[in-house]
């Protein structure tokens, strides 16, 4: 049997200069269902595809409110995501207690990244298996960050992560130049369109996806179920109109590498739940 000698912990380098445990953690992010984020000059929108563990179960929540000015979408191990969201909430609430002002998004993302980095340099720890899209609005404007298990973090105009996210990224790359001046409605529409590219089975509906918004004079809010339905309906209406002129991109070809990683349907439940 072929066995990798250099992947048992994250303090062992491979001779090729890689740390396999960290790469495995980043792989966990790719196996979670897709999440996209994008921003204009005033707003940040996060949208996620939710999975249900079984036919009988509810859809797993993937968006968490951190504070009135900030929220996250997660992809990967939900349990790890919850731990990080609790940490972020605590930091925010402590900051507003001490300074009576909201915590800067960039500063918090840096703290989370530092926290994740520590896990990549201790033999007795494991990296977090979750990627975070952090959307927030502070006195320097709207921000969208991606936090990676490796301890890296990046600021984006628009980003997608999770299973088949390449398709959503392709959509975002094609459209992002129009985002700056887009209205909140247009931003939500773009978020849903891009999410649709990553949708594996069936259609987007108000149950299997959720959208969150935050921005200027707009406290963080999650649109789900009935509040999301009008946006989905508008999307379907527009889609029907657009079909005649605009052909949808060949999604299966674009996301081939990530698709491979996506678990086949109706698998036995994995030990660590991904969403």
């Amino acid at each position: 049997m072929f066995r990798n000698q250099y992947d048992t912990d994250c303090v062992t380098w491979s001779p090729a200069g890689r740390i396999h445990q960290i790469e495995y953690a980043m792989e966990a992010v790719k196996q979670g269902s897709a999440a996209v984020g994008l921003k204009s000059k005033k707003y940040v929108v996060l949208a996620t595809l939710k999975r249900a563990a079984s036919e009988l179960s509810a859809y797993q929540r993937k968006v968490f409110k951190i504070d009135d000015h900030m929220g996250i979408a997660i992809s990967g191990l939900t349990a790890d995501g919850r731990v990080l969201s609790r940490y972020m909430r605590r930091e925010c609430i402590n900051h507003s207690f001490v300074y009576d002002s909201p915590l800067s998004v960039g500063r918090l993302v840096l703290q989370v990244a530092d926290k994740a980095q520590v896990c990549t340099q201790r033999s007795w720890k494991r990296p977090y298996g979750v990627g975070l899209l952090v959307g927030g609005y502070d006195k320097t404007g709207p921000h969208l960050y991606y936090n990676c298990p490796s301890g890296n973090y990046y600021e984006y105009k628009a980003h997608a992560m999770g299973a088949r996210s390449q398709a959503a990224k392709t959509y975002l790359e094609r459209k992002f130049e129009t985002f700056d001046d887009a209205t909140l409605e247009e931003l939500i529409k773009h978020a849903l369109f891009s999410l649709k590219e990553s949708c594996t089975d069936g259609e987007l509906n108000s149950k299997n996806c959720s959208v969150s918004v935050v921005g200027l004079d707009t406290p963080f809010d999650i649109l789900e179920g009935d509040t999301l339905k009008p946006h989905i309906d508008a999307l379907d209406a527009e889609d029907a109109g657009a079909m005649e002129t605009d052909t949808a991109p060949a999604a299966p070809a674009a996301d081939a590498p990530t698709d491979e990683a996506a678990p086949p349907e109706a698998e036995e439940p994995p030990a660590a739940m991904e969403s």
Partner: protein
Amino acid sequence: MIPAPQKHSYALGPGVVAPAMHPEYGRAIQELNNVNYPKAGGQPFVVDAGHGVGGPHQHTQYPYVTGTSVLALKYKDGIMVACDTLGSYGSTKRYKSMERMKPVGKFTLIGASGEYSDFHYIMKLLDELTTDDYCHDDGQNLTPTEIYNYLTRVMYNRRNKFDPLWNSLVVGGFHNGESFLGTVGMVGTCYTDSHVATGFGAHLARPLFREKQYDDMSEDEARALLEDGLRVCYYRDKNSINKFQIAKVTAEGSTISEPYALITEWGYEAFVNPAAAAVGTW
């Protein structure tokens, strides 16, 4: 103020208790091998006698070197703060050139009355915060309101430890086109207003401010009013001297003036026999 008649050596001053005067001391010397005990004879002494003899540190719970009132008000271009430069040792006018106003970051200024070393400690905390901001290098700095709120938390937290920072602080600033003025007391009491004053100033200068201060007043008017306040404080507060600094924070940042004296007039009739009009005094 200086602790009320705790027995202390007249030669050594308050807080430094000669062993003979401390009931616990003789016993402690025998029980502990006290490092302060001079091996080659001579008179032993302890600083902060309570500590190490079965009690916690006490010397932080009374002020030693103190400053008196700080006065501040808003005006057209920002805020203006003033105080004298005296550091009193009890009622001794011990240090006459102490700066009791310090800038914090770009837009904020702190004025402190009360224990001077506690003020140093507070400034150390604030300097750590501004250094931290600088190191983040993201262009974000603490605003006056944030500093004010931070200080209320620090003061109240220390009060809860029964080890208060013995200060009344004035926090003033100008940021994003808005003036900010607030005050924080020793136990975390705090408020913001268009004019504030600590200590005696709250009783002697604020009545004048209430009458004459308005937010659109010119710099000259504000300075004149502040000097009136300082003058009244100097007339009636024995722990003050005629050597003042005035600081301002405007859109350009903060500036603190060199110390200067005010012209005073002691010929008023009310000064001749002050007790005459005050029933119950002597």
